[in-house]
C-alpha cells in the first residue's frame, strides 16, 4: 500500500497548537499525510493525539497554527471538510437505544447518502461488521468488537476519501483488534487515506508512516523502518545470562549503558557505541558470576525506539530544569 512519495498531500498541519487555559495539549506540531497512506499517530495517553484529531475534524478550534484537510482550510472551511471525512472515536459513539439497522439508517440520513446507494451501503456495513444476523439487535447489547466495527461502518457510510480514527482499538480484545486492522488495510488498499492514533506499539507496525508524539510535540516521524534505523540512540544488545534481575541492577551502573530492561527470559540493554561495550559487559558479567553469558546485538523494536525517545526527552528536560534551579 505504499504510495509514491510524490502523491498528493491530503492532510497537513503547520505549527498547530491547542491550549486549554494554561495547559498546552498540542504544542505547535507540523506534519503531512499523503493520499492513500495509513498514517499513525503514536504516543502515550495525554500526549495530545485526540486533541490533534479533533482539531483536524473541526470539532475543536486550534489556538494557533494552520492546517488543511482534503484541500480545505481547517479553521475557515470546517463544514466543507466534514463531508469529505469520516471520524470514529474510541468511544464508538453509537446510539445504544437504537438497533444496529437504525444506527446505520440514522447516519446514512445525516450524511445524505444518495437514495439509490443507501441499501448497498447498509449491506456493506452489515457484512463488514459481521452483523447481518443482528439488524434488529439493540446496539447496547453488542460486544465491544462488533460495536467498534459498526462505529467504523457508520463513520464511512458516505465513502469519505479520508478517515480519522481516534484510538479505534482501545478496549477491544486482541482478535478483534487484528480483524480491525485488516479492515483498515483494506480501506487503504481501496485508496482511502487513514489517519489513526494509537498507544499500542505493535499496532504502529501496520502503519505506512508514523509520528511519535509525546507531551504535545512530535519527537520523531518516518516509516517504522526509518524510525528504528534513525532514531535509536545507541545499540540494542540482547543479553542472556543467569539471574537476569540481579544482572540488570549491576549493568545499570556501568558506564556506556543507557538503559537496561528485562526482555523475555533475558535483558535488553541500550548502549553507546557497540563492540567495546558488548565485550566489556560480557567480561563484567562473567567476572561477577552470571556465566554463561551471551551478548548479541538485536534489531530494535518500535518499543525500544519509543522508550528511548520519550526517556531521552524527559532526561533532557529535567536536566534543563535543574540547570535553571541553580
Amino acid at each position, binding site marked *: 500500500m505504499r504510495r509514491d512519495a510524490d502523491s498528493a498531500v491530503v492532510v497537513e498541519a503547520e505549527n498547530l497548537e491547542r491550549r*486549554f487555559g494554561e495547559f498546552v495539549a498540542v504544542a505547535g506540531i507540523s506534519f503531512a499525510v499523503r493520499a492513500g497512506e495509513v498514517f499513525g499517530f503514536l504516543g502515550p495517553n495525554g500526549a495530545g493525539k485526540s486533541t490533534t484529531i*479533533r482539531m483536524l*475534524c*473541526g*470539532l*475543536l*478550534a486550534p489556538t494557533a497554527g494552520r492546517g488543511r484537510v482534503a484541500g480545505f482550510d481547517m479553521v475557515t472551511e*470546517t*463544514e466543507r471538510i*466534514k*463531508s469529505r*471525512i469520516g*471520524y470514529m*472515536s474510541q*468511544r464508538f*459513539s*453509537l*446510539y*445504544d*437505544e*437504537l438497533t444496529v439497522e*437504525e444506527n446505520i*439508517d*440514522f*447516519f446514512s*440520513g*445525516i*450524511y*445524505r447518502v444518495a437514495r439509490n446507494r443507501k441499501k448497498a451501503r447498509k449491506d456493506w456495513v452489515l457484512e463488514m461488521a459481521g452483523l447481518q444476523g443482528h439488524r434488529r439487535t439493540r446496539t447496547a447489547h453488542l460486544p465491544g468488537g462488533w460495536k467498534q466495527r459498526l462505529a467504523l461502518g*457508520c*463513520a464511512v457510510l458516505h465513502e469519505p476519501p479520508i478517515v480519522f480514527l481516534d484510538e479505534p482499538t482501545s478496549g477491544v480484545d486482541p482478535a478483534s483488534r487484528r480483524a480491525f486492522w485488516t479492515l483498515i488495510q483494506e480501506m487503504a488498499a481501496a485508496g482511502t487515506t487513514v489517519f489513526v492514533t494509537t498507544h499500542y506499539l505493535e499496532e504502529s507496525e501496520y502503519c505506512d508512516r508514523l509520528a511519535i508524539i509525546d507531551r504535545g510535540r512530535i519527537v520523531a516521524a518516518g516509516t517504522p523502518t526509518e524510525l528504528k534505523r534513525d532514531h535509536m540512540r545507541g545499540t540494542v544488545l540482547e543479553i542472556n545470562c543467569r539471574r537476569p534481575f540481579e544482572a540488570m541492577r549491576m549493568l545499570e551502573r556501568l558506564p556506556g549503558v543507557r538503559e537496561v530492561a528485562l526482555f523475555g527470559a533475558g535483558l535488553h540493554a541500550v548502549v553507546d557505541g557497540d563492540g567495546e561495550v558488548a565485550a566489556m559487559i560480557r567480561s563484567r558479567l562473567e567476572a561477577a558470576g552470571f556465566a554463561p553469558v551471551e551478548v548479541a546485538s538485536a534489531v530494535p523494536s518500535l518499543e525500544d525506539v519509543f522508550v528511548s525517545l520519550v526517556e531521552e526527552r524527559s532526561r533532557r528536560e529535567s536536566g534543563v530544569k535543574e540547570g535553571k534551579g541553580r
Partner: protein
Amino acid sequence: MIMWERVLQILRKEFKIVFRDPRMRLVIFGVPVIQCLIFGYAVTMDVRDARLVVMDLDNTPASREVVSAFLGSPYFRAVGWTRDWAEARHRLDAAETSGVLRINSGFGEALGAGRPAPVQLILDGSDSNTASLILGYSRQVVARISGVVLEARAGATAGRVGPGVELRERAWFNADLTSRNYFVPGIMAVLVMLVTLMLTSMAIVREKEVGTIEQVMVTPIRRSEFILGKSLPFAVIGLVDVGLVTVVGVGWFGIPIRGSFALLLLGMGLFILSTLGIGLFISTVSSTQQQAMMTTFFFFFPAMLLSGFVYPIDSMPEPVQWVTLANPLRHVLVVIRGIFLKGVGADVLWPQLVALLLIGVLVQLFAISRFRKRVV
C-alpha cells in the same frame, strides 16, 4: 437551506429514544395525569368546613340562632362546645380548631333591648390565608343575621324602613370560586414548561455525556437542522400534554372550556418556543445531566413563583411585577385561564400572545447564537 432529511432523521431518533425509555414514557404521560389529580383534589385554597369551637356563655334563643347561622353555612363546623375559656384557648394552641366563636352572657338581652350586641370570633392567625378567608365568611354570616334583626326591629316599630346598603356579590367566570377551576388549567402551562425544558436540555446533554454528539457534529449537519430536529419532537410532546391535561380537566373535573381549543394550542405553541429556547440554552451551559437538571430547576422555580400560578402578581412589590413581564409563564397563564374560564378570544388575549411570541423569538435567538458545532 435546511435539509429536511437530516431534521427528520434527528426527529425520528429522538422519538425512538424517548419512547423506548420507560421512565420517559412515565414522565410524558403519567406525570401530567398525576399532577392534574393532585391539583384537582388535594391542593385547594378554598375553605370549607372550617373548624370552630363554640363558647356560648349566653345560651338564649338569640345566641343559639347566631351559632346555628354559623354552623348552618357550608363554611363552618363545630369541633367542640365549651363554657371554659382555658379549654377553648388550649384547643387553639393545639391547632385543633381554626377559631373560637364566643358569645358572652347578656347577648340576647342586649339584642332584645336594641343595644349593640357583640359576638367575638378569635382566629388562629398563624395561617394568615385561612384566617382571612374565615373572617370574610363570618362577616357574611353576621351581616345576614344583622339584616334579619334590623328588619324585625323596623317592622316592630314604624312599619317600613329601607334595608340600608347591601353588597350583592357575583363571581363571574368561576361562580363558586373553586380553586380547582383556577389551578387545573394552570398546571398545563407549568407541566409543559417542565417537560419541554427537561427533555430538550437532557436530550442534548445526554449526547454530550455519551459522546454521540461529537459523532453528529463531525458530519456536515447544520446547526439549524440539529436544533430543529432536537426541538420539534419535544414541542409535539408538549402539545400532546396540553391535550392530556385538557381531557382530564374537562372530562374528569368538569372544568369548563369556554373558548377555542385551537387558540389554546396557538398560545401554548408560542409558549413552547420560549421553553425550548431555555432548554437549549441550559444544554449549552451544562456538560452533565445533573448540571442540566439543577439549572432547569434554577429557572423553573422562580418562573413558577413569579407567574401568578399560585401567588397573585398584584400582591408583589412593584419592581417584581415588572420583572414578571419577562416571564413567559405569566402570559400563557392569562391566555389559558382566559380561554378556559372566560371564553375570550384573540381580540382580548392578543397582548399576551404578542408578548409570548416576542419572548420566544428573543430566547430562541439567544440560545441558538450560544450553540456551537464545536464541542469544546
